[in-house]
């Protein structure tokens, strides 16, 4: 494609540059011969491009058939990925839930259903799959597959409002055994803390109405505004782009607008002690 474009551009450039160098007006030059056209040349430069685009079209259709998932697959998807303003949620067939960090097995392709909860987003992991618009009220399907283990960067590719720029996520490809273990763990509710500060934090979490927007159990599938927080301590990044450290978690809990202006979580009025307790509780959710 690139080579084809380069060749065509070179052809035009040579034609133009030859024209302006060779036929530059010289002093006292006679009037050039008045040529009105040439049927032969005109037909040539109509037919050859038709042939080129026909070949291009054949390759296009073949590649589409090769890379694209069926539009209405007979099988249930392995994972349903939903775009929210401005985070991604993945629900696996076994009930496991992941936010922002989507795990896949190496060497086995997953059928992913792409959906949206609010506005249009676009799920794009350049190294792994085609991009697919996430349109509210519709489903799109893609194959998600990695040939080598690793962490792959993904981002939203359709303008979706104020934090479109930071609607990043990662896809983590790992060998099948690790993947299965992870999948199993994610499907279970996190263990509630038994003693100390996390218990205090857990009580605050419920009293401060955090649960209005956040679920803490994978089995709690009632739709809410905010991302589920089950297993949040296991995530590497917060909000898709800052490291998940206790300090950052505390910052996000109290003052999320300073990190991602415009996100759906308002700043919270919490005392330092409450913040510490809440952070300790969240840190215990593995």
């Amino acid at each position, binding site marked *: 494609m690139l080579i084809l474009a380069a060749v065509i551009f070179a052809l035009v450039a040579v034609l133009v540059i030859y*024209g302006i160098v060779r036929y530059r*007006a010289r002093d006292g030059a006679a009037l050039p011969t008045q040529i009105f056209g040439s049927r032969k040349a005109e037909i040539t430069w109509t037919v050859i491009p038709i042939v080129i685009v026909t070949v291009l079209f054949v390759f296009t259709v073949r590649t589409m058939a090769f890379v694209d998932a069926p539009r209405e697959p007979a099988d249930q998807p392995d994972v349903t990925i939903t775009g929210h303003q401005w985070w991604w949620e993945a629900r696996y067939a076994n009930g496991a839930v992941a936010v922002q960090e989507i795990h896949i097995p190496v060497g086995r392709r997953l059928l992913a259903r792409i959906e949206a909860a609010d506005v249009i987003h676009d799920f794009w992991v350049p190294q792994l799959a085609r991009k697919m618009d996430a349109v509210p009220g519709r489903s799109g399907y893609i194959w998600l597959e990695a040939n080598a283990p690793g962490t792959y960067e993904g981002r939203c590719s359709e303008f979706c409002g*104020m934090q479109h720029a930071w609607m990043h996520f990662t896809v983590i490809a790992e060998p099948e055994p690790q993947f299965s273990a992870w999948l199993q763990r994610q499907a279970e509710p996190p263990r509630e803390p038994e003693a100390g500060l996390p218990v205090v934090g857990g009580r605050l979490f419920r009293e401060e109405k955090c649960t209005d927007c956040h679920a803490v159990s994978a089995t709690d599938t009632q739709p809410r505004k905010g991302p589920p927080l089950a297993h949040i301590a296991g995530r590497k990044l917060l909000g898709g782009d800052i490291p998940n450290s206790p300090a950052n978690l505390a910052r996000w809990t109290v003052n999320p607008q300073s990190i991602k202006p415009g996100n759906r979580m308002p700043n919270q009025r919490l005392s330092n002690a409450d913040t510490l307790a809440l952070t300790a509780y969240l840190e215990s959710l593995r």
Partner: protein
Amino acid sequence: MSGLAIPADPPRSGVLAWISTVDHKQIGILYMLTSLFFFLVGGLEAMAMRAQLALPNLKFLSPETYDQIFTMHGTTMIFLVVMPVLIGFGIYLVPLMIGASDMAFPRLNNLSYWLLVAGGFLLYVSFLTGGAPDAGWFSYAPLSEKTYSTHSGMDYWALSLLLLGTGTIASAVNFVVTIATMRAPGMTIRRLPLFVWMTLVNSVLILFALPALNAALVMLLSDRLLAGHFFDPAHGGSPVLWQHYFWIFGHPEVYIMILPAFGMISEIIPVFSRKPIFGYRFVATSTLAIAFLSYGVWVHHMFAVSLGRLFLSVFAASSMLIAVPTGVKIFSWAATMLGGSVRFTTAMLFAVAFLLEFTIGGLSGLAFATVPVDWQLTDTYFVVAHFHFVLFGGTAFALFAASYYWFPKISGRMLNETLGRCNFWMVVIGFNMTFFVQHFLGLLGMPRRVYTYPDLPGWGALNMISTFGAVILGLGALVFCANLVASLAFGAVAGSDPWDAWTLEWAADSPPRADNFETVPVVRSRRPLWDLKHPELPDWAAEGGS
């Protein structure tokens, strides 16, 4: 001296005369000046964006402001700059080129212009009402719905575009009737200057494309103001419906913004090559082919939506096919120079640069017709690079060429060639620095419409180059403005035909008298003034069937 002189015409100067004018030349000039004003405004918005993107993680603009600025930049450049300036050139030139004294409906012409002013005012007054529109120039639902864009910016956007669209449709009707009924004797359809021909085709394109946008805008307004549900999925509406409506307008729109530019290039290259256009009939017919095909390619803006492979293949085929008639034109223009005697005025420099830049834009467009490539590159900076090569490298370069070519006719004075060359090189260098590197940013995975970006390898450097280029480009545009002002005051007097050209407008005075011509020359070919100057070698004897 006796004080008895009575003006034969209504006065042509003074504020009131300009406001109430029904003279196509004055209305054309008003269109061009209004577009130039908005070009500077849209350019400032571009500068603000490039400043914010110069380095990763900058906080010069808040995300809220950035979203408003890029929406306003796109909307301004398309609806308040490119469309009105092309219409303005058409309004000024078409009657002169066909030997008429005015447009068919002078008062309608005046109304169109004031609808433009009203539309521009409505769009910009939104800044004072709580916030400008912020959903991008194509305003995808549901982001553009009340739930997600809560201030009234989107309402102003929709109302403004309704007014602008109505004015544009009125202009299109005016062009069609003018060209159909007011041609000089002897000027058959096959002898139309190509700029006039392309304006005619373009007007038909407008008549069938703009109503789709107007309909969609009314639906969006009813969603936002009357609790309608056309595009609201929560109540059974369809966001994809908006996309179909928008792009069935939006893709012909792309050609609406380039066909008149093709027409300008088709006038300028032959005159400065001292040869007639190579293959008039192919150039003219390929314009019809483009117009026809342009209604059948809109889904290539939606390849990333799950619409089914067969459906996408059909639109991939049509989108590739439309490259063919476009290619025909490029080869014809290049062949016009071959064997000619090429004079490098600033106008011609811009026309030659147009050929090369537009070819790049066309080829990157072909990449998007190739669906699997689109599935990676759509909505990245590759798209931003692509459409700026088409709209700036294409249309804007043609407009610079046209300005240098027709300014003498409009003002009676030549634009300064030294400033012109300075203008040309700054714009060419600045433009390529700004936008060529954006191809690479897209290939590296940078999405468009992001208010900032992470510090990934190469991203900061490429963006910095782009910002530097934008500064040079912006200064180049200011040199153009300075040239306009300086040449208007001090430029060499042009005379009626400074380029030794061939179409009828050069038979009129510079600037033309109120009724354009004292007598219209006889038209027996496509180059009536050539026939007058070369009675030994008239075109009507040679043109034949070509």
